């Protein structure tokens, strides 16, 4: 009921922030690429090419399957983490989130270490590699955090007494969850699912490194056309196909997102008792084993110096062996990554926060349009975007092609959808009576927002900030195009090590990856602590 949603005066003005940002740094660059290369015949050729048809179908198919599998793996863990409070919950949260930021090259190498011919699971599961199985496993691995965090955040706000009431009426734990809680978190679930879908739809590194030579997604194909064939015509046509597919998927997802029932907004987690402990262990044990094994392999290999353990690789990180002008000490790579991530988070919160605020209170059409606008960049190839930056932002005063700021801006484009998707459900679930009460007591519309909505949504904002930060820390595809060689991020530094043979290079890549994991885990654990601490405030 839109009557419940007081309009914010000046919201039109606020809307210019996301519109200008997405317009300048997404619509314009991508439109430039398409305008340079697109011809009607080009699109028809792409649509008629059997190989490209297979590529498009495989892209769609693997994204859909990856999304379903990710939900299946993440849902039990999300439920357990939302329902129960236990020692080490913050650590578990951090461990679940770390895979999300690891560079693909590192995860691929860890998967190979586990599943490869010399790995412990190489016998029974070695057949997965390379191929579709490995692609799907890696996609689930990367994206469990997206579903787990988004859904757990929503579940945490569902009153557990509802489920308990259902159970006292004879429903099993699963039925109670399925019939009571699941419908209530459906919007969050659909939001997370559409993000996972877009992420895997535009999968690049995973498909290149684990898929074998016969598997290509539209993203891989665009890169091939640009980097090897200089065929902007085909690349632009593919970019259009990708864009249309992404918009269509988002529109469908938007229709599936039901209205949200107002819920009580407080942390419903409690300590597990009796048999619940076993349930908790049974759920979290396998999930964590799946997520942590590759991390542990990477960490182990960073200290495995051949015939013993040592810190050789970490020491090597800090010494410039070849006196290269591009040598980057690890603290500089960490500083670059953290700085970029902080800026990207700030931009994403600003752009995404305003969009979320507008989307949550405006009528459905406006809110869908805004949501769509912010979501589409997530479903666009990093190559298209990087190319667009170089082609579009090339004239003074906007000759930004070698400006360092493009890196956090590109990261913010990818992170803003998370902010919107996490904050909108939180804002919508605020009981409108609270706002009415504030208004009755004489608060102005702006005051109502600041006094009611902002504090109640702040937890969701923190979750979103954590995601934005993590996305920026791990982003690789766009960064490779945009980062200046003297200012690499941690994933770029890792990639550089893997460009040359030699045990020291591999070891340093593992050491830098371990540092990246530690930085991420520290940030996420810090946010968890802060989040837990703020719960009591309202």
């Amino acid at each position, binding site marked *: 009921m839109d009557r419940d949603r007081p309009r914010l005066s000046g919201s039109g003005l606020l809307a210019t922030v996301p519109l200008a940002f997405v317009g300048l740094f997404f619509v314009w660059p991508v439109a430039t690429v398409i305008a*340079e290369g697109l011809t009607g015949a080009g699109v028809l050729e792409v649509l008629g090419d059997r190989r490209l048809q297979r590529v498009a179908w495989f892209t769609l198919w693997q994204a859909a399957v990856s999304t379903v599998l990710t939900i299946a793996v993440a849902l039990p863990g999300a439920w357990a983490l939302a329902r129960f409070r236990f020692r080490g919950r913050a650590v578990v949260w951090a461990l679940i989130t770390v895979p999300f930021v690891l560079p693909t090259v590192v995860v*691929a*190498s860890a998967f*190979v*270490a586990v599943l*490869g*011919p*010399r790995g412990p699971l190489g016998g029974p599961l070695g057949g997965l590699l*390379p191929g579709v199985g490995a692609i799907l496993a890696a996609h689930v691995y990367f994206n469990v955090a997206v579903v787990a965090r988004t859904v757990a955040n929503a579940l945490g706000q569902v009153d557990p007494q509802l489920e308990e009431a259902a159970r006292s009426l004879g429903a099993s734990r699963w039925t109670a969850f399925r019939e009571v809680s699941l419908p209530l978190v459906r919007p969050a679930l659909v939001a997370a699912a559409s993000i996972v879908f877009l992420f895997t739809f535009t999968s690049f590194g995973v498909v*290149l*490194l684990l898929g074998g*030579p016969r598997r290509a997604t539209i993203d*891989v194909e665009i890169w*091939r056309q*640009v980097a090897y*064939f*200089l065929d902007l015509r085909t690349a632009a046509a593919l970019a259009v196909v990708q864009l249309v597919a992404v918009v269509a998927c988002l529109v469908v997802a938007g229709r599936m997102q039901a209205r949200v029932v107002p819920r009580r907004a407080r942390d419903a987690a409690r300590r597990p008792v009796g048999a619940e402990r076993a349930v908790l262990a049974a759920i979290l044990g396998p999930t964590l084993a799946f997520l942590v094994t590759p991390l542990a392999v990477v960490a182990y290999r960073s200290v495995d110096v051949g015939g013993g353990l040592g810190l050789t690789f970490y020491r*090597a990180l800090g010494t410039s062996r*070849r*006196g*290269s*002008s*591009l*040598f980057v000490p690890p603290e500089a790579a960490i*500083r670059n990554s953290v*700085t*970029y991530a*902080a*800026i990207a988070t*700030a931009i994403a*919160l600003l752009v995404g926060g305003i969009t979320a605020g507008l989307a949550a209170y405006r009528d459905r059409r406006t809110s869908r349009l805004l949501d769509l606008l912010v979501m589409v960049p997530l479903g666009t190839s990093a190559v298209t975007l990087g190319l667009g930056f*170089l*082609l579009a932002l*090339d*004239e003074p005063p906007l000759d930004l*092609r*070698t400006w*360092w700021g493009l890196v*956090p801006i590109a990261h913010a484009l990818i992170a803003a959808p998370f902010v919107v998707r996490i904050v909108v459900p939180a804002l919508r679930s605020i009981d409108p009576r609270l706002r009415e009460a504030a208004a009755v007591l004489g608060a102005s519309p702006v005051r109502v927002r600041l006094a009611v909505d902002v*504090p109640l949504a*702040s937890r969701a904002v923190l979750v979103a*900030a954590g995601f934005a930060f993590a996305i920026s820390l791990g982003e690789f595809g766009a960064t*490779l*195009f945009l980062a*200046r*060689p*003297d*200012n690499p991020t941690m994933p770029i530094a890792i990639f*550089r090590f893997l*460009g*040359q*043979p*030699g*045990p*020291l*290079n*591999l070891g340093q890549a593992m050491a830098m990856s371990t540092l990246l994991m530690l930085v991420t885990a520290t940030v996420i654990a810090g946010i968890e602590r*802060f989040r837990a601490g*703020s719960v009591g*405030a309202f």
Partner: protein
Amino acid sequence: MKVKRWLAGALALLLVAAGCGDDDDGGDGDGVTLRLVTHDSFAVSDEVLEAFTAESGIAVEIVASGDAGAALNLSILNRENPLGDVFFGVDNTFLTRALDADLFVRHRSPAIDDVDPRFVLDDEHRVTPIDHGEVCVNFDRSTYPDGPPATFEDLADPTERGRLVVQNPATSSPGLAFLLGTIAHFGEDGWQDWWRALVANDVLVATGWEEAYYQHFSGGSGEGDRPLVVSYATSPPAEVIFAEPQPDDAPTGVLVDTCVEQIEFAGILQGTEHEDEARQLIDFMLSPVFQADMPMQMFVLPVVEGIDLPEEFVAHAAVVPEPLRLDPADIDVNRDRWIDEWTEIVLG
């Protein structure tokens, strides 16, 4: 309120970042800053670059965008409004594409007289050869105590079944170089049969070099189970240099008869406002100090004659007297068709 403190923190970080991002622009004072556009494997040592700046008063800023293919194509797409003044990293595979795009200003460096003439592929001197290297099959010494196979023909022999890893020429530049090598060796009508025999011999195709070497190769730092991989003639010295402690012998070796030549060129980008300085930078890249610096930085070899190589290269790098090569114009005309044919035969 906590949110406020958070925002203040974010703002502070933003300001700090803005401060540290800007400090390295513009160079010092009145000196010109040249932008060197290149791929992400480019490297030079600090002291060498500083020596150039000290001598000429020209500062150099390095701009990299993607791998060799991507960097060149982006420069071609940006031709009207170039990203920089000098481009480094066109190889002979894509040379004709760059020349046809009229990307470069002519410059005959005086130092070109010291370059082995076989590397000078453009008589008009729009590009200047800077380094060369060879793409060759590497082998794991531990698998072949009695000596490895030698020729392309040997690799298709049933005794080598399931042992070779190559890269997809459509996604990898060493993969493309290796395909071109087989075409140079077997001829336009013979290479297809050899690749068919290789497929029957269970060849493994990786997407890129990293995957092929680190995931599938068993030698050196590779973690796979195949003892033969397409890599570089300089990979064995890298296995020694990037090891601690350094072994006396490289754990891998090179099949010299499978080596195909890769030459990298530099050129002055059309539209530069600093043409004179750009000429000086190209000349500097042919100077003994830069040429001698390249092997340890980029694992490529000098094109200027009489440059001493680092001892690790002397000890462990393969000497390839006559690498395979194809005419760049032939490559340019046929490249896409060859890749399609290869895809049909090997991946079809």
